[in-house]
């Protein structure tokens, strides 16, 4: 076994593991694990309608942001 193969194995496996860790940390940071029971029920209640709702909320937030942008535009 050459040392380059060993370096490759170590770096690839550690990198893949690190990707998983980063995803998990992102989940924790954005509050996706804050409520255990909701996390579990999310799967139970998941359907098309929920997706519509999520899109609706996102659009609402986007619209809000745009509205603010307009308001804060300096008068010229």
């Amino acid at each position, binding site marked *: 076994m050459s*040392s380059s193969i*060993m*370096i490759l194995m*170590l*770096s690839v496996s*550690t990198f893949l*593991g*690190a990707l998983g*860790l980063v995803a*998990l*940390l992102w989940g*924790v*940071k954005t*509050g996706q694990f*804050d*409520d*255990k*029971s*909701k996390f579990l*029920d999310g799967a*139970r*209640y998941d359907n098309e*309608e929920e997706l519509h*709702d999520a899109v*609706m*909320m996102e659009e*609402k*937030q986007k619209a*809000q*942001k745009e509205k*603010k942008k307009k*308001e804060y535009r300096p008068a010229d």
Partner: protein
Amino acid sequence: MADIKCTHCNLTFDESVMIVEKDGDETCYFCCHGCQGVYHLLKDEGLDTFYAKLGENTLTPPKESEKEELEKYDYEGFQNRYTKLREDGLREINLVIEGIHCSACVWLNEKVLRKTDGVIEADINYTTNKAKVVWDDSALKLSKIIETIRSIGYNAFPYDPKLQEEYATKKRKDYYMRILVAVFGLMNIMWIAVAQYAGYFAGIEQKFKDILSVAEFILTTPVLFYSGWVFFRGAYYGFRNRMVNMDTLVASGALLTYLYSIYAMVTKNGEVYFESVVMIITFVLVGKYLEVLGKKQAVDTLDLLKSTIPTEVIKLQNNGEKVICAVENINIGDILEIKAGEKVVIDGKIVEGSGYFDESSLSGESIPILKKEGDLVLSGSVCSDALIRYEATKDSSSSLLASIVTLLEDSITKKPKIEQIANSISGYFSIIILLIAIVTFIGWLYFTQDVQRALIVSISVIVIACPCALGLATPMATLVGIGVAARRGILFKEATFLETMAKSTLVALDKTGTVTEGKPSVITADISKDIDPKLIYSLVSTSTHPISLGVKNYLESQFEDIQTVTIKDAKNIQGRGISGIHGNKKVYGGNEAYMQELGIAITKKPLNSLFFIADDSKLLATFELKDQLKEGAKETIANLKKLGLKIVMLTGDHDQSAQAIAQEAGITEYHAELLPQDKAAFIDGLKSKGEIVTMVGDGINDSIALSKSNIAIAMGGGADVAIGVSDVVLIDESVKKIEDAFRISRRSYRAIKENISFSIIYNIIAVPMAIMGYVYPLVAALSMSLSSLVVVGNSIRIKRLRFKEKN
């Protein structure tokens, strides 16, 4: 007639009382108009899939909403106190939602809120029932949001997130992320270390060894500096306060081992110890995380208590008009009105009316007290039956309830941990090791003039002094101890409490609910043949007074399947008793004063409370009631004395009943008629005399004393606040568990001492060798692992602790 389920709330009622409605092909039954209204609202909004999600769960039927109350939510003062203006111009509020029973309720509330125009974000936590709502103030008013929640049958009230909840959650999350990184690093380093160990014994080429070392180095670096950051910070604060604490040891040990390993890696000389760096950081960090979890629970319960305090009161203006007024705006001398079932928020003196007040949350006394004009009412008590007007004698911030909450907040954030840390043996030990390392460095430098050699030898002193064995000595033993305790229904919130509890010298017990059952029960009964027990049973069932409940329970236990008979015209006579008519016969039940009023002679004169049943002419039954000792209380107290503990009983009750209970339980020292603050002051007095005090209690009235004591034990069924501020919780409320808790803590403390003495002996042998520069890599690697294993094994022995009763 059959019982039938309400279509909305799923509660079952008799068919005859239900509102029946044809809805298409289906027949719906509703228990009230509230349920009917909500059902149609959900149906119209297309949210009726809620019922499929609800399944078999039941809901609380919605209350009729009170319109005028909602206005206050839009006042500026209210908004400033409870809401937060975000940078993007949106407002944010934290609400506690009342009436959530299941995840379907969470779903419904979120759904409805999100559908409302102007709501930008709505998140509800199922566990705490807390909601975070972000909305656009220009498009929607806060009162509208509250109204929306009410319209679907729930209620929402705001709470102040500036408390500590947010901070505690953030801290917990922070720790959790650090642990994730540490565990990831640990798992990966371990399998690399396996290769390295194998190579050590079977022979390995230097180039492979270098690759493995570099891989370990890459994995260790984030663990040490990201996960281990808390220890560096702790060590820094310790250094600023001129204290050497556990953090100093962990931080310096891990950092020096890390530096030494880098040196060994770069010079290809000696062994690397990256895996011990990661191991020590991870294990100690997990221990710390468990402590953070405990603290968060305390904060949660405190928030809940605050949210139950009413925020407004009814004030009478000079012209007799009633206005709803925020609690903060009440001045001394204002006349306030309180209705039956309401909680008093401001201390005052009654000017009109009389009624019973339940002060159980303040004094622990379970029997409501009659208060007349001129009597003082205390905040925190609940008016149980009448409309009362009283004059405020204090403002909101100095009223009793508010001051209890403030005191608790202070004690949670400022609990003196410093003395515990300073007392712990490991603190001293780490100073010694650091000193020895410095002396070794100076010695080698002086005698050999070789800086590099001196540095390596002194680092090897610290490495071999084994942060593992010493670092694990306390956490391992306490973790096992906590596990053993938890299996017996004793919850220790923090590991260090085991140590403090083992050292405690005095136990202060609360009387009601701790030593005694907390509710009166019948000890003797004398029922004449002329009366049917069913009649007594029916009569006492009409009242919720603790004495009536005691008699009711007694009758239920004496006569199987006892049924009620119809009682007409049942009346509660204040301070006297109850009366009713059965058939054409009048029946009275009450105390001695009531009987004298009826002209019935009473001859019996015992110490305990009496309850009589009579008709117009003669006495028909007598019950003697007493608050009884809990099962096993006497033996437990005797056993605690055998363990060398002093026992004191503290109570808000009368001297007479305290004396009786103390005598029965075998307690020689007791103090009666103490207010919550008095109890706390008493604990402070004991502490200043040098006693280490363990306090056991269960009510809000004990909570200040609990927070002041060195170790606080709360009964699981007690008030949430009491559980929140205490360090140890006994789940099943049994007194015997107090003794178990002491035995477990003392056994664990012994294991800690054994572990530490082992590490000291180990170090006495290993450190001199290191000082002389004779540390062979093989010895270092083996002794490091072995010393840790010994500590772990010794700690597991705690599990073999025997308890008297087998189960």
